[in-house]
């Protein structure tokens, strides 16, 4: 695929067309990318709700460090700040305090350069629904400076891998199921060869087959690319399967962070609970399932 990036960014870019696993070998670019893929330092975000109400702290002093090629899961109840954190890293929200760096590039000062390295798939597939997947993907390709024809060929290959036939690419997105739309959204994100991919509940609302296909594809991306992935999810089995490390947000704070195995072992050892991510989630979010359902109704996160 023809990319049109500055040399500095191109060095950091990860090819999306590669079908050869890296087998643990370090890419040449990786040596230059020994800086963390994502560095979040003491980030705080407040929102003022209503004219005279106190500011709500959506994110409180959160710090993260992700290495290249890692899949990092963020778990948390509805309203815990997962999507806000993703939006902050995406540059869709400004930071009140703290700092975000992507491969050493400061988000606040080098926003355009950072944007060339990242892409995001949100819980709602964001498309012009009357346009076809091909037209939506061509738009994305041009925005990211790619050759639309090469991008179209690449999109066909990615979508075929996700189970979407080429003949579907010319029909309006609105005629596709939600699961298919989400797959097109993932294909669109991968087209731009993001070095950092932000997956904000990408499988929420998908049927079991689609969910498994997307999860398998994320694993494939991890195996064949050096893309670093941040994944927010409510699906604990998904987090367990995909994530090398998990951070748990509660009330905007990062209350726990470790590998899935370490977290499970910790709650079993310290609390005498079954060694499952359900136990981990309940322990660190400090709520019952009923509380979460009520919160979801109130906040609709």
């Amino acid at each position, binding site marked *: 695929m023809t990319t049109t990036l500055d040399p500095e960014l191109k060095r950091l870019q990860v090819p999306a067309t590669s079908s050869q696993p890296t087998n643990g070998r370090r890419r040449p670019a990786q040596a230059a990318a020994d800086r963390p893929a994502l560095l979040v330092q003491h980030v705080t975000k407040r929102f003022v709700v209503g004219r005279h109400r106190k500011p709500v702290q959506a994110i409180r002093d959160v710090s993260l460090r992700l290495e290249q090629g890692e899949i990092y899961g963020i778990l948390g109840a509805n309203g815990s700040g997962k999507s806000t954190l993703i939006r902050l890293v995406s540059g869709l929200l400004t930071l009140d305090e703290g700092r975000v760096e992507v491969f050493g590039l400061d988000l606040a000062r080098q926003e355009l350069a950072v944007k060339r390295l990242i892409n995001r798939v949100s819980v709602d597939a*964001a498309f012009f629904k009357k346009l076809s997947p091909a037209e939506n993907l061509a*738009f994305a390709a041009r*925005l990211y*400076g790619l050759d639309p024809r090469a991008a179209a060929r690449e999109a066909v290959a990615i979508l075929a891998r996700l189970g979407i036939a080429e003949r579907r690419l010319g029909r309006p997105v609105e005629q596709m199921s939600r699961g298919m739309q989400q797959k097109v959204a993932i294909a669109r994100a991968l087209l731009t060869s993001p070095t950092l991919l932000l997956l904000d509940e990408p499988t929420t609302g998908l049927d079991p087959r689609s969910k498994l296909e997307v999860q398998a594809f994320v694993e494939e991306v991890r195996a064949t690319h050096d893309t670093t992935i941040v994944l927010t999810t409510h699906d604990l089995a998904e987090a367990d399967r995909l994530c090398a490390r998990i951070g748990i947000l509660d009330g905007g704070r990062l209350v726990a962070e470790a590998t899935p195995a370490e977290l499970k072992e910790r709650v079993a050892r310290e609390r005498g609970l079954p060694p499952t991510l359900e136990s981990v989630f309940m322990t660190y979010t400090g709520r019952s399932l009923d509380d979460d359902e009520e919160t979801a109704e109130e906040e609709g996160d």
Partner: protein
Amino acid sequence: MTAAVREMRASYAFVERNFNLTKRYFGWELAFLVYNVAGALAISLIGKQFGNNRLLLSLMIGAVFWNYLSIIFSFIAETIAWERWEGTLEYTMMAPVRRATQLLGSTLYAVLYGLVHTTVVLAVLVLFFGLDMSRANLATGAVFMVVGSLSFIGIGMMAAILPLMYVERGAQMTFVLQSLLLLVSGVYYSVDILPGWMQVLSHISPATYVLDGVRRGLVDGLPVTSLFGDIWPLLVMAVVLIPLGVWAFGRAERYAKRTGKLKRVG
């Protein structure tokens, strides 16, 4: 590839996307054309009723060229509202393109769309009334359309801020701005009949100069070189309003990012 070429290509992305959307909504485009032809005819027929050809032409030009300026204004002003409604606003805002690039792309398509639309409406009306346009200076009309578009682009960029800042009703607020321009710009009547304070406002509306220039070109057949008094205010407004529009949009985007208003609602 240079940064300039990359930005131009990104700008073209918005032109191509909007063209694709026009194709997909072709039925609606035809209905919109019929609506505009009917509206312009209804107003122009008042001149026909009075048996006054000059009044007929003046009303027709008011209707057709206000329609053109409205299209430019609405297209740009509704750029944000449209994306918010489709749910693509966050995706577009996190793409690595400068906001001026995005606005330039939307603007270019708006001008092209408006020119095609207006030409069709004008042709239908000329045929309907059997008007003799042999005295009309079409070049003057075209120059005023293009130069007038520039200042309307600036105003449109500032109007696009409203849907960014006011999530629920911002799009509707742009209509208020449009109706105020309609009121003070002498679209269907001479600005001389307005109260003194409204005439002051008419002098700062680009539509006043566009319509005056187009009327003098198409009705009186004057060349653009004799209408410098209408051209220079439009050029000054364009030079001031476009950078002001880009700057104001940037400030509004910053506000939206601080307050979380880019998020889709509804």
